[in-house]
């Protein structure tokens, strides 16, 4: 025994810059507390405590982030024996994640739009049975969704800060596993929801196997999984390039899957459609931020020196993604599926900025992520409001003539769609502008032209919805627009206002996004 302790004392515990990682620790710690709430609080009191805990945690994490960010060293801090890097892009991504998660949590917590919330009270009850019909009518929801959200958020935060591939892999799983479960928790249309969960889970596990195999090959190549070591090895050695490029390819495929970049997007439409809408909002906004944070860091950190060999391939992927998103979006008949395809197209635009590999490319992509995430949260907030007796009326034909029924909802939705299309005076335009100009400066003019063409094509399907809402006669038995409760109203307001403010006065956010580069 004494030998064991003396050995343990010889082990040097790594230094931890607690102030820098406080936001992350707060979120993960609160996730654990939240699990305890589930275990020990009586069922009827859980909702209130969970909402309070989640909101307070997010606010606290945001405050600690701001306090630290004010005088953070520009070069960034490495901590936990160098597996995490807290540099400027990390701070920006964390801020973005916290803000978006706040919006999504407001949607998740809302119990007024759908009586009792969008989540099932007991996921274990079989759909279609008597018990299921009873619980559909019963007020009360599965509050496990809150610890799951916090765990997923914590995983995302680690993911964007990870400085080595193993940490990245663990974080990837920490963020994915709760999302798989959350996808299956819808109160209505349980079959679709369960199917979404199964599909997301199987394909996600499949993709993480690729990701992991990529890590193994890169480990074989460089003898280490730290991004900096891989970069050093790639810069000048006579090791096997087969390992390097095969490993990189598989690694990137895993990341592209999470970011729903085509042709690795196949899960996106199905899962977006089947999941409960607040979860879709969380997934669409936050996962994309985390995944692109990871893509930026990996490409800049480990593979910058070999870029002329892989850039062409990622050009192809970006074009494929934009084409798939823009073209397939044209004929969708379900609002959530249509936005899913729009997210595939946007993933292509983001990839254009990510492979610019310049500081402008990084800051542009970061800004785009913030703008896109906020618009997306508000968009799904609106989608959750249009309902008929059967739950959400997400079929596009049911949206015909919505402007006559509810001009405000239709107006806000139009504005958000214009932002997604990238019309000036919205954040979407500024985002596209900074990303494309960064790409132009790093010599990718043909890609930018292609991107512009596809953004014009994509503009068409947003326009289709607007025309449908304004210029068609509403169906007689059409859906009603629910008056949103305080939570949903707040989420939509935040998203729509931010879309406007970032479109008209983007300079402050662009300054933050461009405050400093990555540290490896």
């Amino acid at each position, binding site marked *: 025994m004494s030998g064991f302790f003396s050995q343990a004392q010889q082990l040097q515990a790594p230094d931890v810059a607690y102030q820098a990682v406080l936001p992350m620790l707060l979120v993960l710690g609160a996730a654990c507390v939240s699990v305890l709430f589930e275990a020990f609080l009586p069922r009827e009191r859980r909702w209130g405590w969970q909402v309070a805990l989640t909101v307070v945690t997010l606010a606290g994490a945001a405050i600690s982030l701001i306090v630290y960010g004010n005088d953070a060293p520009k070069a960034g801090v490495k901590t936990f024996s160098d597996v995490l890097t807290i540099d400027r892009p990390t701070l920006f991504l964390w801020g973005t994640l916290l803000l978006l998660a706040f919006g999504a949590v407001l949607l998740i917590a809302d119990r007024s739009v759908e009586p009792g919330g969008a989540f099932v009270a007991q*996921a*274990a009850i*079989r*759909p*279609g049975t008597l018990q299921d019909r009873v619980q559909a009518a019963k007020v009360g929801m599965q509050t496990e969704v809150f610890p799951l959200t916090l765990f997923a958020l914590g995983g995302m935060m680690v993911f964007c800060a990870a400085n080595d591939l*193993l940490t990245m*892999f*663990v974080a990837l*799983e920490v963020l994915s*596993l709760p999302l*798989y*479960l959350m996808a*299956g928790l819808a109160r209505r249309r*349980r*079959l*679709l929801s*369960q*199917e*979404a*969960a*199964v*599909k997301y*889970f*199987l394909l996600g*596990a*499949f993709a993480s*196997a690729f990701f*992991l*195999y990529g*890590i*193994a*090959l890169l*480990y*074989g190549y460089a*003898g*280490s*999984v730290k991004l900096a070591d891989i970069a050093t090895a790639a810069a000048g050695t006579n090791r096997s390039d087969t390992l390097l490029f095969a490993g990189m390819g598989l690694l990137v495929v895993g990341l592209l899957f999470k970011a729903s970049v085509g042709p690795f997007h196949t899960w996106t*439409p*199905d899962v977006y*459609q*089947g999941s409960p809408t607040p979860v879709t909002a969380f997934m669409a906004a936050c996962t994309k931020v985390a995944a692109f944070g990871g893509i930026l860091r990996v490409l800049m950190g480990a593979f910058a020196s070999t870029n002329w060999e892989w850039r062409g391939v990622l050009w192809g992927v970006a074009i494929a993604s934009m084409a798939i998103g823009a073209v397939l979006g044209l004929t969708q008949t379900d609002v959530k599926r249509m936005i899913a395809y729009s997210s595939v197209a946007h993933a292509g635009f983001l990839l254009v900025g990510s492979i610019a590999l310049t500081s402008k490319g990084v800051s542009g992509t970061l800004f785009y992520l913030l703008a896109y995430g906020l618009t997306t949260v508000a968009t799904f907030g609106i989608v959750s409001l249009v309902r008929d007796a059967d739950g959400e009326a997400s079929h596009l034909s049911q949206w015909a003539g919505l402007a006559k029924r509810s001009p405000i909802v239709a107006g806000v939705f139009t504005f958000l769609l214009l932002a997604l299309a990238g019309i000036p005076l919205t954040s979407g335009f500024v985002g596209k502008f900074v990303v494309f100009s960064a790409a132009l400066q790093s010599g990718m003019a043909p890609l930018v032209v292609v991107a512009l063409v596809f953004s014009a094509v994509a503009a068409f399907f947003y326009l289709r919805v607007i025309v449908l809402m304004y210029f068609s006669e509403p169906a007689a038995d059409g859906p009603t627009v629910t008056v949103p409760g305080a939570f949903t109203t707040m989420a939509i307001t935040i998203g729509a206002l931010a879309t406007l403010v970032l479109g008209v006065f983007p300079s402050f956010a662009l300054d933050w996004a461009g405050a400093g580069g990555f540290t490896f």
Partner: protein
Amino acid sequence: MTPSYYLLLSAVLFSLGAVGVLVRRNAVVVFMCVELMLNAVNLSLVTFARINGSLDGQVMAFFVMVVAAAEVVVGLAIIMSIFRTRRSASVDDSNLLKY
């Protein structure tokens, strides 16, 4: 016997797993094939650790096992719930969301 045979074996196992995901219908078997892929990766990690003469790869294999175990918990829960509904574990039966 050179370590590269282990790498080859690992690649073969990974491919078998991937093909299994594509051809098997039962969700549990599909999931097992994914696990096979993960374990194939473990084999390469350990082999590379041996080649590089460092312990990192072996430690990573442990991490992968833990993560795989967590994945099993979540995955089986999801597969169970859909099995109870549909009385079938075939992944081809879950086919409502499409186009």
